[in-house]
């Protein structure tokens, strides 16, 4: 049973003709356009977008926001074993344990976190979605060959999934040595199975949809059915997942740095490494841990909010 909600939109004016179409003048709104319109009206999306934009601006404009260089230890002399200088006019947030300006470290840290997070997620999405689309496409088309391709790809992905993502990241980082590239590859690789399974699942589901059956009945080529029917209708959840994964990726960048697998150059500010450095001075300078922690949390929150809003706006059930 459904509660019929009476027609949306402007009604016909009195005296309108009995012609079938009463909405000739408007319309032509595709699902993507509609989703974008809903996204623009969503306060959650705005919150997320503003947070993300703020961090992007901070990362991009880092040299303008601080007059110091990141990783400079020129005030190391001011740091003692018992005391780290707190906020002052010269150092808005005080110094860190190595004698660098904390504000500078945080601002430059945004660069690393965002860059690594975005590149690794894009990498994971590209590889994962390709595998998922291949498996889903071949799986939905069926036949012996299709089933074998699907099964082979998915067993491969299953193996990747069986390894805990952090462990996978650790081993890749260990293999490639300590470098930014290793971090990106490690985090990206860990995301591949998520995207592959998600996209394959929605493609298989779309493969059973009536319009795919209709496309078959029309005699469209299989490649076209997969590329222009199944794939576009399956991308929604995967894109949403990518946005949400950005949040996790940023946390994982921090986690890898925390474990000492991040970029080797200590001059590069990075939120995760700042957390590590702060932990044994937590008692006398809690801000050293709290501030990078809060930065990580807020960035992740920004991406999560935006991802959730995107999910809602793409879901046809919320369409009004």
């Amino acid at each position, binding site marked *: *049973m459904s*509660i*019929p*909600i009476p027609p949306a939109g402007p*009604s016909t*004016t*009195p005296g309108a003709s*009995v012609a079938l179409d009463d909405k000739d003048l408007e319309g032509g709104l595709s699902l993507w356009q509609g989703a974008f319109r809903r996204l623009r009206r969503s306060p959650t999306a705005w919150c997320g977008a503003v947070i993300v934009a703020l961090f992007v601006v901070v990362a991009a404009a880092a040299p303008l926001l601080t007059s110091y260089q990141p990783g400079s230890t020129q005030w190391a002399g001011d740091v003692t074993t018992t005391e780290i200088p707190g906020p002052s006019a010269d150092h808005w947030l005080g110094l860190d344990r190595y004698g660098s300006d904390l504000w500078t470290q945080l601002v430059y840290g945004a660069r690393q976190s965002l860059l690594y997070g975005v590149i690794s997620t894009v990498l994971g999405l590209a590889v994962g979605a390709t595998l998922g689309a291949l498996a889903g496409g071949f799986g939905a088309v069926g036949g012996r060959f299709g089933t074998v391709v699907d099964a082979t790809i998915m067993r491969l992905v299953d193996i990747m999934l069986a390894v805990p993502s952090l462990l996978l990241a650790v081993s890749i980082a260990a293999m490639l040595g300590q470098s930014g590239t290793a971090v990106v590859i490690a985090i990206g690789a860990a995301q591949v199975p998520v995207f592959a399974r998600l996209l394959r699942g929605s493609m298989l589901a779309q493969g059973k949809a009536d319009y795919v059956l209709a496309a078959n009945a029309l005699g469209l080529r299989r490649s076209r059915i997969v590329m222009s029917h199944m794939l576009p209708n399956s991308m929604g959840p995967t894109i949403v997942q990518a946005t949400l994964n950005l949040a996790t990726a940023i946390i994982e960048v921090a986690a890898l740095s925390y474990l000492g697998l991040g970029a080797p150059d200590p001059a590069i500010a990075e939120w995760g490494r700042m957390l590590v450095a702060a932990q044994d001075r937590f008692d006398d300078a809690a801000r050293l841990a709290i501030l990078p922690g809060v930065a990580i949390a807020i960035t992740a929150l920004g991406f999560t909010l935006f991802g959730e809003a995107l999910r809602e706006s793409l879901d046809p059930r919320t369409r009004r």
Partner: protein
Amino acid sequence: MAVPTTTSPTPEPVPGGGAGPATPGAPLLEVRDLRVRFTGRDRAVTAVDEVSFTVSPGQNVGLVGESGSGKSVTSMAVMGLLPRRGVEVSGQILFDGEDLLLADRKRLDRLRGREVAMVFQDPMTSLNPVVPVGTQIGEVLQRHFGMRRKERRERAAELLAKVGIPDPRRRLDDHPHQLSGGMRQRVLIAIALACEPRLLIADEPTTALDVTIQAQVLDVLAELVDEAGAALLLITHDLGVVAGVCDEVNVMYAGRIVEQAPRRPLFRSPAHPYTGGLLASIPRLDTPRGRPLTPIPGSPTQTVPWTDACAFSPRCAHADDTCRTTSPRLEHADGRGLRCFHPLTTPAALTKEL
């Protein structure tokens, strides 16, 4: 209530069907000026307005309409099942003289299932998938009659047999997914009948069923209402079902009743162009092949607000400027109600014809 010859004594006296506090002939359910508005974030939508009808004991009343006609909203308002947030309900829903809209939740809970029962369209979602059907019937019996376990089983089996389920004793332990759609619908009817309600509201009870199963279920419903003297409010889009089952028919369009009549006069000479249009547009089994259908143009989503026009006017062949600028009122004559400026037949002409 004509309790089916049961050996198990009911601990609580059961009000006699139709002979309860209501005097004979008095309506059991009287809906007066019902209005339901959904107040959304951006705009408010009036789903049901100016809806008034009565259901008397022993009477089958139909609410007929297409999607968006407000028939289901009306039935949910009567059952008190509309969400409280974002919905404004006004008017009166008198059950046995008591206004259900003023009743508190506790009172409604007592009435629901005990005196008023409901059967929904989708039997799968209305049944709890992890509880055996016998237990689900038993729950109702326990709540309203405080029956003991053994009695409950006994009575549940009787009810299942009554609605035509084969081998009822064995079916008691079945889970809903083990039953076919028709059987599930019958289990729902058995649950609805478990406490011998005085009013049964059936919302599209057979829409999800095949015709041969539909015939069985309608048969069971009609027989039970007949036998127990209860009243039935049937909500459906199917004029054929209404023609076979209902004594009184209310035709709804865009949230208002447009025609109200006993079934024979209604089908013999529909007065509202919408009713007439519906009857002319559906293929009938008993008309020869090739008889052309006369469709109603446009779609049910193509309405104008009732407030300053007839909502059906954009689709009506008889509409003129009056229809497009004035809101018609439901006028009563000769036991029929009609909301139209240009009826297909006048009530007076009708009386003569009959």
